């Protein structure tokens, strides 16, 4: 049985052929993505490249993921920034979306315009616990309907508002002249609509109403909304992104690439819980449920679980790309020290964060601004002018590559390390010291990753570099920035053949083989 997995990236279409019987990757290849004309062209080119390498072969099954045509572009809306807005962002990122922006409270006109400019594929609308605040989510639903863009909305907020929300999205025009509650002012809103274009003031949206991402205060419920995002991606986005021809060829549903990577990370971390590979199929079981799973009845199997089926345990994966830097952490993230109190929203075992302003090419100028050229120059041990020159070149020509052992390569490595450092700072939990009458205490917001033993590098910028461990060391704990609880003593690994996404796809069909290959292909640096 030969399975072919295809990862349709924005630049390259990457293929991996796996022989399930042998439990081995038998070939990899890539070619330029041809999403503008016919996505199958690029696929066939890659297939020919593969055949040139390993000879003619026929595959039994084809499974695909895609991040082409901008990936799955989303915006997330919530009420309070640190609560439902954060829950919304966590949900959308764990579904494999590129969350361009997260909004909180009632969105302003400028924010409406911003969403118009972003032109998202999907919008995740949250706000209020069940039975909690209704006003903000209802008001934001109306404001979303004023935006003349064809996005679908996933509603995952206060269930008590679902009736009103259904009415708004089905027929927003009817509500245009009604009193909007609070002290909403009709007149300026109408004139704003004229600015947005279109004779109609309200534009109905495709929508799905699902369970609240935060049904009770500080309780995350990511799974239902995440599933809706996945379903909408399959039913709506795949066609819009010119992928339906491939979907027909495959017969399997196409998922966003980051979701495939996330599944692979989780598989590699947790392993397969029994011989049939059942028990861990749910990709976002929260920490508590996972604990229950392993405690209830599975404990015995766990202790006798063969080495083949066990995972690596806690890990962090870093995917450094041209436009974004993605960080995946597979860990419960409970405090490792004794006098630590947890604060804020509890985060899921499998957490992904996407930094749209940290990339090696398309978002390089934003990266340089965030990090500061001085820092990069210091890291590379070169002059500021040289670094600035290279950044300018990269921005003007994103296809540019460095030559071996050149100064540019040193700069690239420094930039990459800084990007990894900032992205992991944002991903990891923050420890703050608090003085109480009972002595010094610490408050942890987010996940404590200080004892995570493994950091894995994915993506060309890391795997093609001369010193990948140096780049990945940006994810290590730094005593000068002690508040970020990052791994203190990690070992570094690398996905040199780029099999992560493929194994995430394969894992849907055959977990055991996918895990075996992951463990073989991901090597210590």
């Amino acid at each position, binding site marked *: 049985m030969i399975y072919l997995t295809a990862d349709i990236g924005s630049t390259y279409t990457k293929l991996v052929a796996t022989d399930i019987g042998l439990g081995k990757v038998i070939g990899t290849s890539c070619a330029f993505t041809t999403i503008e004309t016919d996505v199958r062209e690029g696929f066939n080119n890659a297939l020919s490249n593969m055949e040139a390498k390993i000879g003619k072969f026929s595959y039994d099954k084809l499974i695909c993921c895609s991040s082409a045509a901008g990936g799955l572009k989303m915006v997330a809306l919530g009420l309070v920034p*640190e609560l439902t807005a954060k829950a919304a962002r966590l949900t959308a990122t764990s579904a494999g979306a590129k969350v361009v922006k997260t909004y909180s409270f009632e969105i302003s006109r400028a924010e409406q315009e911003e969403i118009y400019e972003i032109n998202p594929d999907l919008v995740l609308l949250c706000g209020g616990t069940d039975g909690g605040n209704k006003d903000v989510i209802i008001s934001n639903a109306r404001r979303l309907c004023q935006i003349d863009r064809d996005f679908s909305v996933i509603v995952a907020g206060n269930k008590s508002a679902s009736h009103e929300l259904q009415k708004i999205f089905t027929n927003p025009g009817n509500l245009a002249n009604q009193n909007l509650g609070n002290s909403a002012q009709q007149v300026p809103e109408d004139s704003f609509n004229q600015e947005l274009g279109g004779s109609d003031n309200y534009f109905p949206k495709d929508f799905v109403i699902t369970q609240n991402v935060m049904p009770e*205060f500080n309780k995350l419920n990511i799974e239902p909304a995440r599933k809706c995002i996945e379903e909408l991606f399959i039913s709506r986005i795949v066609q819009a992104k010119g992928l339906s021809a491939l979907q027909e060829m495959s017969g399997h549903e196409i998922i966003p690439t980051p979701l495939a990577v996330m599944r692979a990370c989780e598989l590699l971390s947790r392993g397969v819980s029994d011989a049939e590979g059942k028990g861990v199929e749910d990709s976002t079981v929260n920490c508590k449920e996972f604990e229950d799973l392993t405690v209830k009845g599975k404990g015995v199997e766990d202790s006798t679980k063969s080495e083949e089926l066990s995972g690596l345990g806690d890990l962090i994966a870093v995917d450094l790309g041209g436009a974004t830097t993605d960080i995946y952490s597979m860990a419960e993230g409970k405090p490792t020290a004794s006098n630590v109190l947890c604060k804020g929203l509890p985060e899921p075992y499998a957490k992904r964060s996407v930094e749209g302003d940290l990339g090696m090419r398309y978002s390089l100028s934003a990266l340089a601004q965030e990090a500061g050229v001085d820092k990069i120059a210091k890291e590379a041990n070169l002059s500021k002018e040289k670094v600035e020159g290279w950044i300018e070149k990269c921005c003007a020509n994103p296809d540019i590559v460095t030559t071996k052992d050149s100064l540019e390569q040193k700069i690239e490595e420094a930039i990459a390390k800084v990007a990894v450092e900032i992205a992991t700072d944002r991903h990891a939990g923050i420890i703050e010291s608090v003085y109480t009458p*009972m002595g010094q205490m610490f408050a942890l917001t987010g996940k404590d990753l200080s004892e995570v033993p493994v950091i894995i590098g994915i993506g060309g910028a890391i795997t093609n570099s001369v010193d990948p461990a140096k780049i990945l060391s940006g994810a290590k704990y730094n005593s000068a920035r002690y508040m970020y609880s990052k791994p203190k003593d990690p070992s570094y690994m690398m996905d040199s053949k780029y099999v992560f996404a493929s194994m995430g796809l394969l894992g849907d069909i055959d977990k055991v083989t996918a895990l075996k290959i992951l463990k073989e292909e991901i090597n210590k640096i």
Partner: protein
Amino acid sequence: MEKKVIVTGVIGADVHAVGNKILAYALEEAGFEVVNLGVMVSQEEYIEAALETNADVILVSSLYGHGEIDCNGLRDKCNEAGLKDIILLAGGNIVVGKQDFKEVEKRFMKMGFTKVYPPGTQVETTIEDLNKMLSEK
């Protein structure tokens, strides 16, 4: 009738956890929906929780004597956040040392609290007051 929502917790750098749990339990038993933020709660955390849950009451506990400093400005921030008529209660050892509670009460009312309770108040008293205040609201 829908349950009334009370956001509670121990304010500031105070880590007295036991009373907080007892109080939350008693309020739940009395039929309220309780959002318990635990210990070391900042003013912002009370407000954020009250916003999301559309709370009717914020009940602040303080046992370590710094309550007055910790509570100062909470009403202003509630107003700023749009929680205009939310009931604000405080109780415990809210000031340093033994002071005339009448004076303490005056100062807390001036800070915008709806009612404050001296040390040793029984929870039943607060529950009775809450029922009254909420029925008048």
